[in-house]
């Protein structure tokens, strides 16, 4: 499903980019020897890919993020190593971008490095989030973030969910919603994301099953 050498996940704040990036990294690791995940989220202070560094490294996925104590900072740091993994053809690379305009600016700074490479850019949508709860708002944000990040978006991803309370109807609503967005801006839909524990068989789009990484401290692990 994610078959380019470099996969970029962007979207609005809290749309599910990190959850999807982590899962895509796991899936690619089953097929390829060298997989790296670049956390270029410069705006979130909690719930980031870098919080799972030991889990990822145990299964041999390289996590590219600010090192040492700097990983706890909400500072606009993109380590130079990202450029290395973009040009290293032996690596499958996933880029987890921060949300909103500020996150997209960070992605834009990689334009020169990414141009000409085998890259696909995915825009993650959850219509239950406040800033993308209407077709009009979603279209506006996608167009604007595409400009800010200086990237053409190749596919939309339906990540309609209400966390632990997600129902099949929520997912179906997401499929209808994202289809409509897709029609308006002429960008195809790649997949519908379904979290483990939910039994949803493919209807409109292929299903990408994910295991939930991001947990609150009271979830029993």
């Amino acid at each position, binding site marked *: 499903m994610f078959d380019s050498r470099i996969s970029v996940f962007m979207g609005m*704040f*809290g749309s599910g980019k990190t959850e999807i990036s982590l899962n895509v990294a796991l899936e690619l690791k089953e097929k390829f020897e060298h997989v790296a995940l670049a956390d270029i989220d410069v705006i*979130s*202070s*909690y*719930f980031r890919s870098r919080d799972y560094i030991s889990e990822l490294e145990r299964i041999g996925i390289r996590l590219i993020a600010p090192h040492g104590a700097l990983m*706890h*900072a*909400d500072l606009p740091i993109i380590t130079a190593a990202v450029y290395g993994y973009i040009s290293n053809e032996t690596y499958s690379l996933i880029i987890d971008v921060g949300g909103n305009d500020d996150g997209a600016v960070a992605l834009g700074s990689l334009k020169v490095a990414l141009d000409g490479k085998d890259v696909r850019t995915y825009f993650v949508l*959850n219509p*239950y*989030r*406040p800033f993308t*709860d209407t077709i009009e708002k979603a279209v506006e944000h996608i167009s604007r973030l595409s400009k800010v990040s200086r990237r053409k978006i190749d596919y939309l991803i339906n990540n309609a*969910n*209400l*966390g*632990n*309370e997600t129902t099949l109807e929520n997912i179906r609503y997401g499929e209808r919603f994202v289809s409509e967005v897709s029609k308006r801006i002429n960008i195809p839909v790649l997949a519908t994301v379904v979290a483990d524990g939910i039994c949803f068989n493919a209807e409109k789009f292929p299903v990408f099953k994910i295991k939930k990484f991001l947990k*609150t*401290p*009271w*979830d*029993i692990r």
Partner: protein
Amino acid sequence: MAEKVMVKGNEAMGEAAVRAGCRLYFGYPITPQSELTEYMSRRLPEVEGTFLQSESEVAAVNMIYGAASTGTRVMTSTSSPGFSLMQEGISYIAGAELPSVFINVVRGGPGLGDIQPAQSDYFQGTKGGGHGDYHLIVLAPSSVQEAVDLVQLAFDLADKYRNPVLVLADGMLGQMMEPVEFPEFRDLNTLPDHSSWAMQGCEGREPHKITSFDIDPINLEKMNLGYQKKYREIEANEVRYETEMIEDAEYLLVGYGTMARILGTVVKMARNEGIKVGLFRPITLWPFPYKELESAAEGKKALLTVEMSMGQMVEDVRLAINGKMHVDFYGRTGGVVPTPEEVLRELKKIVERSE
């Protein structure tokens, strides 16, 4: 879509304020609550409200003072160091008896600290913080939905008692996403009428005076006695708390905010192992549920208070228990969040000691 939405705590508290009829926000961004400031900057213009980013938290709190003097619903939000900067203004606002809402999304301290979740601003919120004999009403939500509900309540209590109200959250609550249902928009025409005291133009009537100042000590004491009378009324009417499985419990856990969510998991884990434990969760930190906790603790073998601090609320727990039993404490601080497993280990030590 009138149904549930998936919202971050910070965004949820902003939307809840808008729906409560708040159209004025003054504040300055600080992690881990900046999404709230950002949310209001987008949202208030949509409802013909005013968002203003101040040059600092000192400026913000004085803007709140001015706006609250007109009897209009007004709020700010910040995180620990920013809330420290606001203390002088909050003391003035409490003295001038002005309704206003503050949200502190607490992070690790003291000083600059860090940006991870903490509960080490409990003393500051409940025991003063600024100078003088005053109290804030302090509400501590433990879920995003409860944060929405308590922000609404905060505006109502602020208006009812003409008193600043603090919603004491923590970084975890501000940053995490949960499904919530928002209440309907409050009709602005139904908001309480403050024309008897507020600064709303004095043409044709005696001017109103809003101040926390009186140079005559007898008069200032009188003003203070008035505040105290109001505080006793709040203590009598506004205590809120929740319990979980306390009836048959031999042991009692006490915690507030997101810490209480972790303790909820501990209760389940412990009961699976045959330890009968219950949870007491204060929702109002001031007024603190002293009597209610005292009776909940009756007949229990031991009581463990857990906080994301080195022990602040535990002092109120000990006041409630009043020496009748030993009160144990476990805490992590500096932005470290205790895991259910480590709290269970602490609980087991107490169980072993008590059997």
